[in-house]
């Protein structure tokens, strides 16, 4: 890391407008996320991906649950709803059924989606509800101060597993695969181009699409496990991510500081809930 020469550079403070500001609630920035948190980067990729899809912005809604990632809904300049803990997917289900012309995106965290909201995510995937789910996985409950999550790898220390987690974590892509999700990908926030592309593909996908985004939590996960800064976690992703498109999801579980297999694992087509309900395809319905 290079540093500036000793002489203090004059600070320029002219009014600047970030090109992504039109898609953000600029009046709420800077956001609440810690320095080096990966959620902001994921949102950055999302708004860029959304712009590239050409889906009209007024026809996109973002729904979040509770937690650090739960705050995403409050920063995107779209119709957005911040639900109770774990319930983003049922809200999105109601909205997607009432407004079939809208693209409903659930943007939430691992604790929100696969722990307290676990029943909702598996059933929404099973129904092939027409929603896109972006799950930020930082392996920990951030907002409440670093408790063990259902995605925390074994051994990892959290405030509720002070001697190291003994539980088996979820392999989230495998879980989603078992439930019948039509699109499953995993990227780290370091893979900005690939993550953006995956988000674009998920947004254009009809049915239940799911992206797991591995993101650094420096304040809690890295600190409690002495993994350095958020930037150190990014370096770890750089050195330990392995891209395996089409990998068997059974094999993509993540151990503590072990290899992270990334890629697009599943991309299939099948009728959505509403198509079956309206009898537009085979598979029952009236």
């Amino acid at each position, binding site marked *: 890391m*290079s*540093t500036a020469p000793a002489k203090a*550079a004059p*600070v320029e403070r002219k009014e*600047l407008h970030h090109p992504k500001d039109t898609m953000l609630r600029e009046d709420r920035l800077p956001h609440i996320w810690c320095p080096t948190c990966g959620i*902001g980067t994921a949102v*950055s990729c999302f708004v860029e991906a959304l712009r590239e899809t050409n889906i009209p912005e007024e026809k996109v809604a973002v729904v979040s649950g509770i937690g650090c990632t739960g705050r995403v809904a409050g920063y995107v300049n779209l119709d957005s709803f911040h639900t109770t803990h774990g319930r983003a997917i049922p809200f999105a289900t109601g909205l997607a059924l009432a407004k079939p012309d809208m693209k409903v995106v659930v943007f939430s965290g691992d604790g929100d989606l696969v722990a307290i909201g676990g029943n909702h995510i598996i059933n929404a995937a099973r129904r092939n509800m027409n929603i896109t789910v972006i799950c930020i996985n930082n392996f920990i409950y951030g907002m409440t101060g670093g408790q063990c999550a259902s995605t925390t790898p074994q051994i990892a220390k959290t405030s509720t597993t002070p001697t190291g987690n003994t539980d088996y974590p979820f392999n989230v892509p495998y879980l989603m695969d078992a439930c019948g999700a039509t699109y499953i990908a995993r990227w780290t926030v370091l893979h900005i181009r690939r993550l953006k592309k995956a988000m674009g593909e998920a947004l254009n996908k009809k049915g239940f699409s799911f992206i797991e985004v591995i993101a650094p939590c420096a304040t809690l996960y890295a600190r409690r496990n002495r993994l350095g800064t958020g*930037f150190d976690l990014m370096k770890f992703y750089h050195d330990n991510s392995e891209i395996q498109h089409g990998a068997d999801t059974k094999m993509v579980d993540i151990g503590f500081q072990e290899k992270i297999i990334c890629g697009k694992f599943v991309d299939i087509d099948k009728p959505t809930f509403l198509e079956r309900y309206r009898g537009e395809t085979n598979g029952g319905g009236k």
Partner: protein
Amino acid sequence: MKLWRTPLDAEKVRVPHGVVSVIIERCKGCSFCVEYCPRDVLIISRNFNKKGYHYPEVVSEGLCVDCNLCEDICPEFAIYSDPVENTPAPATKENT
């Protein structure tokens, strides 16, 4: 940027050029932009912003190729590059 060999179409390809802007007050000093800039355009400033973070500073403006990587990786929406039209291809490190 160091190249193993000069590409055959190097004459025809016009390398784009960009100008980097930093929204200083949004920065939280993560250094992602500085570290991942492929052209080493940025360094960490010695100055603080209002919240006490060292923000990035442009040191080699001419090297920016407007790849937008800093913009995309920044978690704070605090940095971006704009393309500069009608400028000659920027000098590479080899010939500076």
